[in-house]
């Protein structure tokens, strides 16, 4: 028992959809419901409108290990984290946490817009579970880490979003719980700072603390975690060494599609500057978008809504990964120089990235789609693993591999220009 930080058995969480959501019931009904709900025993039987976000999740996490939780959207990752961090109660099951618990489900928990950076460090620190003396002791380090120097006494509402993220993470980085839960908090903010945070988190893991880390970023999971848990539809599919679990996740490709669309500009991934509208894989010559012939070109089309305030120039960049989580390459729409230097207007923008035929390698390609602005670098909208497709090589002799049919390594398979000529002629060959 001494070596176990977290043990859970049979955790389940049920949400009711559509029931008791109407806030405008009659007052008598309202009061009656409130009374009835408080007296009625909890019901656990299944009903039509029940939704089990988590089912029968059992796990043991040894002390000092860093465990990644992965899975598609809606797989139950956040629900699991919310139960373990005591934000919500499980409907069934039981878990034990051995050690002081800290959770980091968003950056800047408890920040109040009206208060200054200084006040918010104290407040957020206290809400995240630090003692007053502890916060005061680490205060200077936190300010240094956040790099907000002269704005320390400025209300947070005047901060840029990048500064808010830095300050929020700085406070959290100095939490010293024995068990730490981290949700996808690194997906926002500028790249430089993300790197710094990842570094700090590696330190946390090295300090003998137990960390549970939910993320869509396979590289981050692979770098930070010894073990990983794969969730699907609320159940644990696999619990084991990180590389195995990541591979299974990528192979299963469950839910990976070649086309994504967000209908609602309010809830689509993004912020006030830009929100993703759609991401599509389009084979230029037609045919199925999920399975691309290695010889034919494809387009990746990204549409986004933008408010384009001031002289911000939102720019789409695409990150291409293979099955092993290796980044194949990154590309950015500033290659369209005319667009890059034009002034932006609010509305919908479509950016198309053309990938020539005979360029990608065989296998699954996973594309993360991002809209950012630069100087400073700020990520406005990001969808990790937005779309995916499989590249197949039919080995018909006219591709890069030619007639060679065995394993053909390399993360890309470009058809490069070769020039071959006869330099001289001799009567006999070599040797």
């Amino acid at each position: 028992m001494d070596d176990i930080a977290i043990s859970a058995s049979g955790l389940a969480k049920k949400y009711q959809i559509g029931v008791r959501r109407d806030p405008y019931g009659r007052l008598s009904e309202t009061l009656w419901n409130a009374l009835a709900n408080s007296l009625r025993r909890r019901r656990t039987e299944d009903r039509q409108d029940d939704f089990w976000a988590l089912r029968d999740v059992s796990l043991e996490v040894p002390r000092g290990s860093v465990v990644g939780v992965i899975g598609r959207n809606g797989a139950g990752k956040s629900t699991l984290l919310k139960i373990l961090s005591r934000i919500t109660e499980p409907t069934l099951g039981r878990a034990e946490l051995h050690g002081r618990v800290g959770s980091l489900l968003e950056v800047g928990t408890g920040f109040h817009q009206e208060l200054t950076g200084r006040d918010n460090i104290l407040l957020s620190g206290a809400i995240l579970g630090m003692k007053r003396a502890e916060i005061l002791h680490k205060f200077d380090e936190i300010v240094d880490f956040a790099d907000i120097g002269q704005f320390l006494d400025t209300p947070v509402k005047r901060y840029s979003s990048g500064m808010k993220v830095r300050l929020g993470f700085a406070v959290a980085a100095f939490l010293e719980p024995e068990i730490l839960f981290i949700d996808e908090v690194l997906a926002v903010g500028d790249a430089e700072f993300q790197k710094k945070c990842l570094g700090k988190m590696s330190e946390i893991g090295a300090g003998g603390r137990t960390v549970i880390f939910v993320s869509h970023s396979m590289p981050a999971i692979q770098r930070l975690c010894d073990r990983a848990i794969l969730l699907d539809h609320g159940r644990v599919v696999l619990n084991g060494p990180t590389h195995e679990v990541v591979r299974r996740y990528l192979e299963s490709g469950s839910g990976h599609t070649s086309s994504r669309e967000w209908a609602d500009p309010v809830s689509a991934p993004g912020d006030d500057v830009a929100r993703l509208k759609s991401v599509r894989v389009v084979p230029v010559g037609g045919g199925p978008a999920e399975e691309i012939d290695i010889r034919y070109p494809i387009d990746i089309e990204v549409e986004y809504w933008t408010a384009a305030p001031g002289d911000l120039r939102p720019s789409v960049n695409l990150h291409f990964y293979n099955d092993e989580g290796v980044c194949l390459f990154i590309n950015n729409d500033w290659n369209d120089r005319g667009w890059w230097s034009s002034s932006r207007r609010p509305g919908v923008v479509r950016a198309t990235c053309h990938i020539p035929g005979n360029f990608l390698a065989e296998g699954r390609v996973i594309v993360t789609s991002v809209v950012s602005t630069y100087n400073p670098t700020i990520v406005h909208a990001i969808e990790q693993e937005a779309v995916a497709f499989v590249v197949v090589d039919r080995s018909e002799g006219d591709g890069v591999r030619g007639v060679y049919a065995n394993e053909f390594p390399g993360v890309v398979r470009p058809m490069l220009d070769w020039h071959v000529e006869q330099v001289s002629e001799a009567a006999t060959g070599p040797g």
Partner: protein
Amino acid sequence: MALIKNRRTASAAGAWGRHVVVLEPRHGWRELGLGEIWAHRELLYFFIWRDLKVRYKQTAFGAGWAVLQPVLLMLVFSASLGRLPGVGPAGLPYPLFVFAGLVPWTLFASSLAGASNSLVNGEAIITKVYFPRLLLPFASVGSFLLDFAISLGALAVVMLYFGAAPSLAIVWLPALTVMAVVTALGVGTFLAAVNVRYRDVKYVVPFLVQLWMFASPVVYTSTLIPAKWQVIYALNPMTGVVEGFRWALVGGPRPDDLILVSAVASLLVLLGSLVYFRRVERTFADVI
């Protein structure tokens, strides 16, 4: 290397034994969790500090409102109700009478309104981090104690103006203040919990506070209520608080029975609402 690692593990194991948190669905009645509040008293202090800082920062008058509110009400009531015979007790200037009632009343009314909105206003943190949810309504009430202290100062000035000196009974003031706080906590935590699910509460509270003021002897003396109704009247905890306040500060007959009934009533209200709060608390993050 291995040796050093082992040693660290061993010492950590010692520290680990102390914190074990068990998470499971809770059924039925359970403890009120006041011990947990005590364990989190620093965070309670931070919430109070935040509420005060934000409130005073966002208002031009800041702490001035703590004085201005009861003073304006005193002027209005003195100019209207105060002119009627028999509304206040004989021998006591009506403005002094009404102000001594308005000071504890304002503490109660603002605390109640603040507490009932505290959870809804704290939605962002309730869904992101664990802490005893009771801290939010408690902090809200706590933050109005400073306003109350300021308005007590104003009351002292008014007493000085009318040449009223408090008797020894003033030692009861802290106990009566606690009673007002207990009542505000009781009703406030209940309404805060209901507010999570039914935002109707937001519209009910101002109306409730208004009605409640006229159901308490704030602007009139409790002797206007017939003797046979006095016990029922005192079931309203604010009856004992307000009458007690006046007695402690500006004298008069000691309202023993009223205070006793009101004290019991206020404790029962708090107890009932804490029990209710703890029962529905587990769904806050899902429902809010």
